[in-house]
């Protein structure tokens, strides 16, 4: 893999800001979607059209505030005459690609720029006094799903890679290549040292991920385990609300959550000794996973938003590893791969039918 060599040894944030400044100044793009610093250590997404506003840009904030793909999905088609550069984490870029397959984002005039992601700090541990900086070398500070993330780089159209002192901008798609061209940069630098770093770390993480998934399954697998897992769930549905993939205006559970005849609960109660109210906790979570686990990008946003500290993202991500395996699919990695539920083969899955 080759990319354009940028200023060696320079901080990643400064390099990203230089790139954004260049891109706006020379008209390669007309606007930029990037988090900016807000009051009290907040990092809202901002649509920047004026170079001077880039002072406040914080392309790699310590937390994930809103999943970037959700920010991208908040507007309709981007105008032909402009181009938007979206600077986001790899899992956010993957969610954006999933959402474009789900016809919720039109990526036509949008360039996704990613970087080697250091992970994010859990929202609950991030106060507005002590900033915890995520550190890829010190995994205990980053969120559990970040620690087991295997797609921490090289997603979207173009990626800023940082191995030791090398700073190489690697184009990943034709759009990414065109972006480099418009900046007058040529992909001539060899990025193989970075590739090796990424491959090694990814393999290491793959093991961590498998171990974590096995542990989760052995602790919470089965009906009792699952009931225990969700015993503290307060049915706020925050996990769905903040998830980039759950874009539905009306979720199935909102129809199921209407009042039911008391007889239904009394029957459950007479069988089980007592019946939980609100009901539908497991229905919501299992039904949701059946709907969207194929597209889960393991971004951890749901887990960050859970007021009950339920490791919901790890559970959905574990299930997602299994469901995507059926089709050899990887959510958001390749824009060309069709969504598994939008296509089929005539001869397949015979073990599931008779």
């Amino acid at each position: 893999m080759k990319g354009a060599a940028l200023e060696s040894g320079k901080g990643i944030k400064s390099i990203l800001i230089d790139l954004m400044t260049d891109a706006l100044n020379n008209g390669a793009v007309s606007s930029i979607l990037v988090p900016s610093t807000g009051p009290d250590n907040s990092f809202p997404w901002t649509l920047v059209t004026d170079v001077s506003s880039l002072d406040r840009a914080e392309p790699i904030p310590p937390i994930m505030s809103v999943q970037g793909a959700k920010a991208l999905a908040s507007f309709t088609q981007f105008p032909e005459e402009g181009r938007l550069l979206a600077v986001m984490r790899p899992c956010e870029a993957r969610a954006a690609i999933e959402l474009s397959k789900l016809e919720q984002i039109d990526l036509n005039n949008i360039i996704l720029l990613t970087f080697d992601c250091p992970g994010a700090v859990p929202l609950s541990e991030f106060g507005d006094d002590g900033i915890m900086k995520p550190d890829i070398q010190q995994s205990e500070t980053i969120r559990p799903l970040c620690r087991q993330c295997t797609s921490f780089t090289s997603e979207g159209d173009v990626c800023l890679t940082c191995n030791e002192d090398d700073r190489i901008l690697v184009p990943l798609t034709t759009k990414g290549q065109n972006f480099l061209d418009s900046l007058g940069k040529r992909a001539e630098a060899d990025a193989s040292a970075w590739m090796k770093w990424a491959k090694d770390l990814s393999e290491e993480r793959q093991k961590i991920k498998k171990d974590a998934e096995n542990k989760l399954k052995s602790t919470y697998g089965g009906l009792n385990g699952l009931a225990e897992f969700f015993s503290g769930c307060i049915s706020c549905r925050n996990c769905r609300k903040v998830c980039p993939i759950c874009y539905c205006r009306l979720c199935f559970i909102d129809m199921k959550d209407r009042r039911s005849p008391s007889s239904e609960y009394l029957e459950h109660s007479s069988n089980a000794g007592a019946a939980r109210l609100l009901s539908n906790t497991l229905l919501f979570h299992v039904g949701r996973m059946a709907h969207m686990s194929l597209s889960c990008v393991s971004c951890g946003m749901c887990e960050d938003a859970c007021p009950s500290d339920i490791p919901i993202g790890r559970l959905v991500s574990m299930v997602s590893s299994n469901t995507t395996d059926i089709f050899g699919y990887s959510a958001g990695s390749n824009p060309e791969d069709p969504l598994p539920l939008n296509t089929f083969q005539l001869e397949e899955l015979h073990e599931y039918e008779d």
Partner: protein
Amino acid sequence: MEIFEPRIIGFLCNWCSYAGADLAGTSRLKMPPNLVPVKVMCSSRVDPEMVTDAFLRGADGVLIAGCHPGDCHYDKGNYYARRRFAVLKKVVESLGLEAERLRLSWISASEGARFQQIVAEFTETIRKLGPNPTQKETLL
């Protein structure tokens, strides 16, 4: 000892499997009384959420039955249904729940006997598994 009579929900596609069930009836085939049929227009109408709901509300088994591949009234519905069913089964299995309680079968309008045989066989499988434990779980 009391014999456990499973309650099975069957989502049957209107054009094939429901007609197959009808044929089994008019042919006076002896049928276990355990299946409660729900008519759907196509196997692809069955959202995984419907199956999950039946399962968590205590159905001992859930059968989805549709036209044989190639015969769907809407051409490709059952191919999509098969993919969705595979995903649901995998979700259920990954969570350590009993995926054996879910079944997808293709039964044509002329296969009354096959319908009878599948229902009988599935009923026996479920009888061996015993009642769905969700009925005894408080924290659903």
